[in-house]
Structure formats: C-alpha cells, structure tokens
C-alpha cells in the first residue's frame, strides 16, 4: 500500500436544526484504517455528524479535519472527489448506464475513465452489467454499483450512511461482508452509520454510540459483547442478544 489511510478528527462539532442541536459538541479522532460504526436511534445525529466530513452538512461551530487539514480549506467538490459516499437511497443517475455511473467521479474530476470491469469485480458483479441501465437492476445490485461508484476515483475514505438499510436481509449480509473485505483489501478508513447494533458489531473494529447529538459510548465490538461500553450502548446491544437467545431456544 502506497500511503496510510486518512485519519478524521472532529473538534467540537456543533450543528443545530431549528431548536434542536442535532450534533452537540462532538470531539473525537478516527485513526487511519479503522472501520468505525456510528450507532444510534433515529434522530440521534449520527447521519448529520457523518455528513460534516464531506461537507454535505456544514457545522455551525467546530471543525472537521482529514489528516490534520480542515475540510473547509478548499472548494467542497474537490474535497468530495477524494471521499467515497454511499447512502440508503442509492441515488444512481437514472439516465446513465452502470459504466457511466461508476465513471461519474473520475469524469467530473477530469481523470481518465476507471477500470469498470475491476470495480464491478470488487463488488462481485459480472462485467456484463456495465452496459445496463439502473432501472433494470435489483436493489442489491444497485447498492453494489453505488459502492463501486464511490470507490472509482481511488477514494481511501469511505462514508456509508445506512448504506445497507434498504436491502433484504440476505443481500444485506452479502454486501456487508463484501464491504468488510474491501475495507481490508484496499486499506480504507471506513465510517458506517447504522441503527442496527448487530451490523455494527459484526462489521466494525470500533463502535461509537450516539444519543441526542453526543457520543455516549466508544468501545470495540468485543468490549460491547462482553457487557462494557456503558448503559446506552448495552441497551442497544440487548436487542440482538435477546434475538440470538430466542433463536437458540427455538432450536432446542
């Protein structure tokens, strides 16, 4: 690997929507190569915090740094071309083929077209889908193409906003495993926003729990599974644990 993956630092990030403080003074550092899951219930501020990294949300106060450099230092489009971003509603360009969608980032950056075949291979899709239109594909295929599109410009920082949320459980498991593998293969720094604690525990190397705009827990999956991380985190861990227990009892 040519260079280490990027690090992300939040310094007192604060964002208000109307009367509600969506992000209420968050300071933390994500180390290069970490796979961080940002977990919380709806409205906890996790998506807002994620979007301050690629400036889809501009904080009211505080700063976000990538490798020590303030994200506001240059134009937002230049910043975003270095960051992969995948979100729940996918947002493929409906008037472009799969290959054109994957090539969107390099195209707008004025780079050479990417190796579409290799990128499709990374997300385990056959090269033959390159000429298809988005509406001809299944939801799972579309989300894999969105991941390929996010990786196409050579991004080393990958932001996933409920990226698996709209997929059926089987597809979701497959795409999730593939994401974990890609994280390792391409030496990425990955931030995954999810409301599903099981997904966070199984994919991430570090789990942050958000509540009312603040980070209330910061632990490894192993610590959380062992009962650590505090009350708010354990309330979320309790759900998949209880489900697993019930499944085990059914099997007896």
């Amino acid at each position, binding site marked *: 690997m040519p260079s280490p993956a990027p690090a992300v630092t939040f310094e007192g990030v604060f964002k208000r929507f109307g009367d509600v403080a969506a992000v209420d003074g968050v300071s933390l550092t994500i180390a290069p190569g970490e796979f961080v899951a940002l977990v919380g219930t709806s409205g906890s501020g996790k998506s807002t915090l994620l979007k301050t990294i*690629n400036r*889809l949300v501009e904080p009211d106060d505080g700063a976000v740094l990538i490798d020590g450099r303030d994200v506001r230092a240059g*134009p*937002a*489009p*230049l*910043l*975003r*071309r270095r960051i992969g*971003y995948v*979100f729940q*509603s*996918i*947002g*493929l*360009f*409906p*008037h472009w083929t799969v290959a054109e969608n994957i090539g*969107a*980032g390099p195209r*707008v*950056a004025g780079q050479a077209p990417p190796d579409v075949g290799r990128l499709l291979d990374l997300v385990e899709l056959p090269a033959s889908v390159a000429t298809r239109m988005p509406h001809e594909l299944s939801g799972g295929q579309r989300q894999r193409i*969105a991941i390929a*599109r*996010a990786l196409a*410009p050579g991004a080393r920082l990958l932001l996933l906003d409920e990226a698996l949320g709209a997929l059926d459980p089987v597809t979701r498991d497959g795409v999730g495993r593939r994401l974990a593998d890609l994280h390792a293969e391409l030496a990425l720094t990955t931030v995954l926003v999810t409301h599903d604690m099981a997904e966070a525990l199984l994919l991430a190397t570090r789990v942050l729990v958000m509540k009312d705009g603040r980070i209330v827990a910061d632990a490894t999956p192993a610590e959380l599974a062992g009962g650590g991380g505090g009350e708010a985190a354990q309330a979320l861990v309790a759900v998949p644990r209880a489900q697993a227990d019930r499944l085990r009892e059914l099997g007896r």
Partner: protein
Amino acid sequence: MSAFLDALARVPPLLAAHVLLSAAALLLALAIATPLAIWSARRPAVARVALGIASLIQTIPSLALLALFFPLLLSLRAIVAVPALGFLPALLALTLYALLPLLRNGVAGLHGIDPAVIEAADAVGMTPSQKLRLVEAPLAAPVAIAGLRTAATWTIGAATLSTTVGAASLGDLIFAGLQTQSWSLVLAGCVAAAGLALAVDGLIGLVERGLATRRRGLAIGALVVLLLGLAAATAPLWRAGGERRVVVGAKNFGEQFILARLIGDRLTRAGYTVEYREGLGSAVIFGAVASGEVDVYVDYAGTIWTNEMRRTDTPPRAPMLRDLAAWTAGKGVRMAGPLGFENAYAFAMKRGDAARLGVRTLADLAARSPSLRLGSDLEFLERPEWAAVRRAYPMRFASTTPYSPTFMYQALASGRVDVISAFSSDGRIAADGLVTLTDPKRAIPGYDAILLVAPAPARDARFLAAIRPLVGRIPVDAMRAANLQVDRADDKRTPEQAARWLAERIGL
C-alpha cells in the same frame, strides 16, 4: 376548390413570416425562461414571483396583449427609436405569452428530480454547473420539453393574431377571409397554421423520444429535419436584393382589400414586387405609412381629420382636403389625391321603416331614438364621429350593439336592430333597399377616399406615376358595385377579381 387552391397559393410568403415570427418569439422566450426556471427552482420566493407574473400575463387575452404593445412602444419612442407596429410588438407579445409553459414546466422538471440523485451528484464532487449540465438538465428535459411543445403550439396559434398589429402572418388570410366571408381563405390560413403547429410539435416530440431512449440518431435526425424545415419555410423571405419590394396596406374590410389589389396591380405592372399587409386597424395604419412600414394605402379624409388631426370642425370638402394634405406632409406622408368617391359613416334604415316612422334626417332619428335599436360596426361607438353626432343631435337608443360589418347588415335585415351605422360606398345599401339619413347640421365630416404615400415612395417618380391615374377616377357607384361583388353572400368574388373588374369599369 379552385378558390381554395388560389388561397393556398398565397400561403408561402405568409407562412415564411409566420415561421420567422413564431421561431424568434420562442427562442427569445427560451432564452428568458431557462435561467429564470433554474433560478426559480433554487429559490421558492423567485418561483412564486416569476410564475405569478407569467400566469397573470396568460390571463390577458392574446389579442389584447398584442394591442397593448402598440401604445407601450409608442410611448417608448420618446426615448428610443423603436417601431410600434409590425414585427417588434408581435414578437414581444408572443414571447411573453410563451413564458408560462416554459417556466412552469422547467421548474416542475427540476423539482421532480429524485433528491437522492441530487445528493449523489453532490457526493461525487460535481460543481454546481456540472450538476446542472450532467444531471439536472437531462433529467428535467422530458417535462421541460413538454412545456416547449405547449409553448410552440400556443405561439404558432397566437401568431395568427399578429396581423392586427401589422406583422405579416397566416392570420392575414384568416382575417381577410372572415371580413369578406371567403371561407377558402380562412380555411387555407387555418390549415397552414395547424399543419405548422402539428409538424413542429411532432418533431420536438421525436427529439424528446430520441433523448429519452438514448437514440442519439433519432434525436439529432428529428432536430435536423425541424431546423431544415423551418429554414426552408422562410425561403420566400430570402431576398436576392435588386428590386425594392413595396408594401400596400389595407384596413379590415372588403373595399380596402379591393383598393389594395387595384393599387398593387398597377405597381406590379410598373415593375415593383408587391406585398400586401391587410387587416390593419384604423388606429395603426396611418402610423405604419408614416414610419414607412406600409408604402401606400387608401384612407378616408374624415378618419384622418378626426382621429389623427383631432379636429372637430367640419369645413367644406376643398379646404378640408387642402388642410389635410398640408398636415400629412408635415408627417412626411404624401396625400396623392382623392379617388373620387366618399365612404362616409351614414345612418341607414330599411326604406319601409323610415317611411313609416317619418325619419329622413339625423334630427328625425334623434327624436325617435328612445324606441329604436342601433347596430354599429366594431369601432364606431368609440369614434369621435359618434360623439360629434350625439353633440349635434342628442340621441339615446333603446340599445346599441356592435357587430362585424357583415353581421351588422344581417342584423338590420332580420329586424334585430332598426338602424345601423352603414358606409356610404357599401354596395349593400342599394342591394338591401336601405335609405341613408341626411346630416343637416354637418356633424359628420367628409369621407373622401384618399391615397396616402409613405415618405420614401413619395420621392419615387415611377411609383407616383403608377398610382396617379387612380386619382379622381372612381365614382361611388362603381365602388359600390365592386364592393357588392365581394360582400354579397351568393356568387361571391375575391377582392382580386373585383379589383380587375373595377379597373376595367373605370377604363384602366
């Protein structure tokens, strides 16, 4: 059928003018609506204001919108030299009219884009202009193009009304046909306008289909056919230079159409290429000859006297014509001379009614007016002559109803009105057995038909020599007979035929 073929032969130059006017208005509207729609889609406050104004414009009847530009441009003339008649007012009115569908569909198209696609465009690092060009424009295109098709159809249809402000269009055929009840002319104008609208709509639709289904060949092919077709349609306007064209103007009734052809035939024989601008309103046609947009036309002394010179006295004929010639000369317009007949406003009744009621003069009519119903032409009730008549003979009718001229005579014949504001040279006065009432107090000025010539041709000896033989040559009975040929319901002649008959009758 041959009348229809004759009418079709007049289509090409008018179609060319129609295409040029509609295309220019549509392009100008697109140039205004496109940035405005983008701005409106970003800012709801702008959208409210822009769409509000465009909707308001749409509620103005298109005929009125066209007419409103005449005084507006006239007042602008104090600041810049703009023509108040012809192409410019028609272009501006049609442009405003096309804005609403373009704007509304443009905004709807942009608002209709899935927000996830916009978020993705931002996330892959598109700049605002890349986002507009690569994502928003193509995705808004189907709805925006539907708006363009609506605007194109409306514009081509409304352009027929531009005849009334002196811009040549297919409306020339429709208005002339309606006035003389020549349905083949109306039909030719309508068929050509409808055919143009359908063809443009269909071809833009093909371009849109080509874009939607990513068939570049279809989109480009349809666009090329559209542009080539429009360019070919304007071919009659491509001037080879050389012989200057002259424009003969006419107001909107049969006698004017006949006289225009009579003048035009003489100019053609003198080697000029003649164009006709027919259906101009009384209020605009003098302005058109003064500014040189019309080279020659026939007006009536009393009309210029009261409407343009704002005179209220009614001197005898000779001093009146002398004053009038001096006044028009001050505007650069040459009064080449009277044609020899009058077409005055004359109150007419059925002979039997007049005898029974003992009405012979306007004074008699005033006394009987509370029990009588007046039918007038469309402009008479607004004209100074009507005010002058009422000053001299205080009258109040049981009802007053304006009609287009043909229907005014029918209303009198069928008994729906008792008295009409007829025209003294109208062939139907004799044909329908009507009597005209005398004007003992001389409230109505003389209405000698006079030839008016624009400044440039007034200096052209060949031009003047071609039309001068008409001066003093046309007696009123000859004019009435020619008018009747065009206005009567049976065995109707075209104005061209009546003009040729009249030329022969007066020995030219």
